[in-house]
């Protein structure tokens, strides 16, 4: 195994983006030091290493920072290419497909989910319709495959990880189903497969703490909307 140097990860206890990097590091067996940030009181370390966005996660490898979770995942895959599993397929067409779906999850699916979760009334309905449409596309893409890349877990699976541990939390808070066995048999099977991976399952933040946190976030957004509408 190549000398990995010093690896540090700045994240928070619950960040879904940080979790992706945890999974990559753990699955590839890369030792690292984990630093949980308080985003209401950002550390000098975070401000120094991510001056552009001041966000987590930040991977610091031998003192050099890499920001943006999908960029970090590709960096990990290229730097520790000797450590299985590969996070992207070898074939360029399949790599392009994996990158496409990871982008889709972040740029289309997640914002739809966010709208459904942080709004109410008509805007929430639109968000729910939008996430339903995105899930339909993801379901079709996944059909017949173990993971989005095929036989092996990879970057698009990491990018959708929030579907497995966070969506049940959202469903509990909203009192409605977003993912179900009937409409999403492949996604449901995939979720169980993801949860069966020990390092992933071990990394889930405590569910009751997530419910408390996300319920407060929803309340905050609804209150802000009420205040701005007068």
């Amino acid at each position, binding site marked *: 195994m190549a000398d990995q140097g010093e690896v540090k990860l700045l994240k928070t206890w619950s960040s879904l983006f940080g979790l992706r990097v945890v999974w990559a590091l753990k699955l590839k067996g890369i030792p690292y030091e984990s630093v949980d940030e308080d985003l209401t009181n950002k550390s000098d370390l975070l401000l120094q290493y991510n001056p552009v966005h001041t966000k987590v996660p930040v991977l610091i490898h031998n003192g050099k920072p890499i920001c*943006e979770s999908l960029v970090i995942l590709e960096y990990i895959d290229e730097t520790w290419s000797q450590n299985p599993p590969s996070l992207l397929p070898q074939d360029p067409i399949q790599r392009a497909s994996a990158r496409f779906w990871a982008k889709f999850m972040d740029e289309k699916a997640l914002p739809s989910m966010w709208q459904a979760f942080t709004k109410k009334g008509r805007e929430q309905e639109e968000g729910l319709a939008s996430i339903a449409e995105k899930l339909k596309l993801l379901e079709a893409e996944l059909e017949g495959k173990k993971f989005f890349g095929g036989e092996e877990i990879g970057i698009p699976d990491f990018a959708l990880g929030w579907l497995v541990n966070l969506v049940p939390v959202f469903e509990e808070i909203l009192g409605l189903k977003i993912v179900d066995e009937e409409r999403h048999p492949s996604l449901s099977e995939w979720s169980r497969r993801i949860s069966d991976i020990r390092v992933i399952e071990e990394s889930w933040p405590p569910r009751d703490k997530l419910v408390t946190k996300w319920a407060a976030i929803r309340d905050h957004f609804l209150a802000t909307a009420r205040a701005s509408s007068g």
Partner: protein
Amino acid sequence: MAEQVKVLGSWGSPFSKRVELALKLKCVNYECIEQDLANKSQLLLDYNPVHKKIPVLIHNGKPIVESLVILEYIDETWRHNSIFPHDPYEKAMARFWAKFIDEKCNEGVWKIMWCKEEERGKLVEEVLQHFGTLEGQLKDKKFFGGEEIGMVDIAANFIGYWLGLVQEAIGMELVTRDKFPVLCRWMDEFVGHSVVKPILPPRDELLAIFKARFNATAWEY
């Protein structure tokens, strides 16, 4: 079997031109199939069913979509004349800045083009900050990629050429020589580059389209 490379694109689209620029830098022959975005072809709908957008690269019958994903594919498939750095850290930096350009700079300008007047001040302040951050990356380099054009320069093509026309169309100066001398110097190098210059869309035609679009919809609230 001869290699077949096609680009479903649009003459005025910066995203389309990113793909063409990468192919030209690698001396890859391709056929450009102009798309009418108001009347999308079956070809486009078949090859990009999820987003129904250009550009689409079709390589030996297989489609690749999303311009930044296409740039990665091009670099991995035609390995000469690299547009990405070789070092994984430098490559990560290139990806970071390409994302920043799309999500902060380009998106910021887009929002200003279509915003309500009362929102404009704040949006302008934000985007100027982003341009400042981007300019900081250039320092004394000729291009973001160093001595030669790289992936970040290609990703910044909207800023390099289209931005000036947008500014003229909306009657607003965002990036000026006195405020952003380094970025403007880069813009001159970019549009003057021997591979970039021939594929830039005609200025007058593009400006006419921007002016028409902006005037038609900007104030309809």
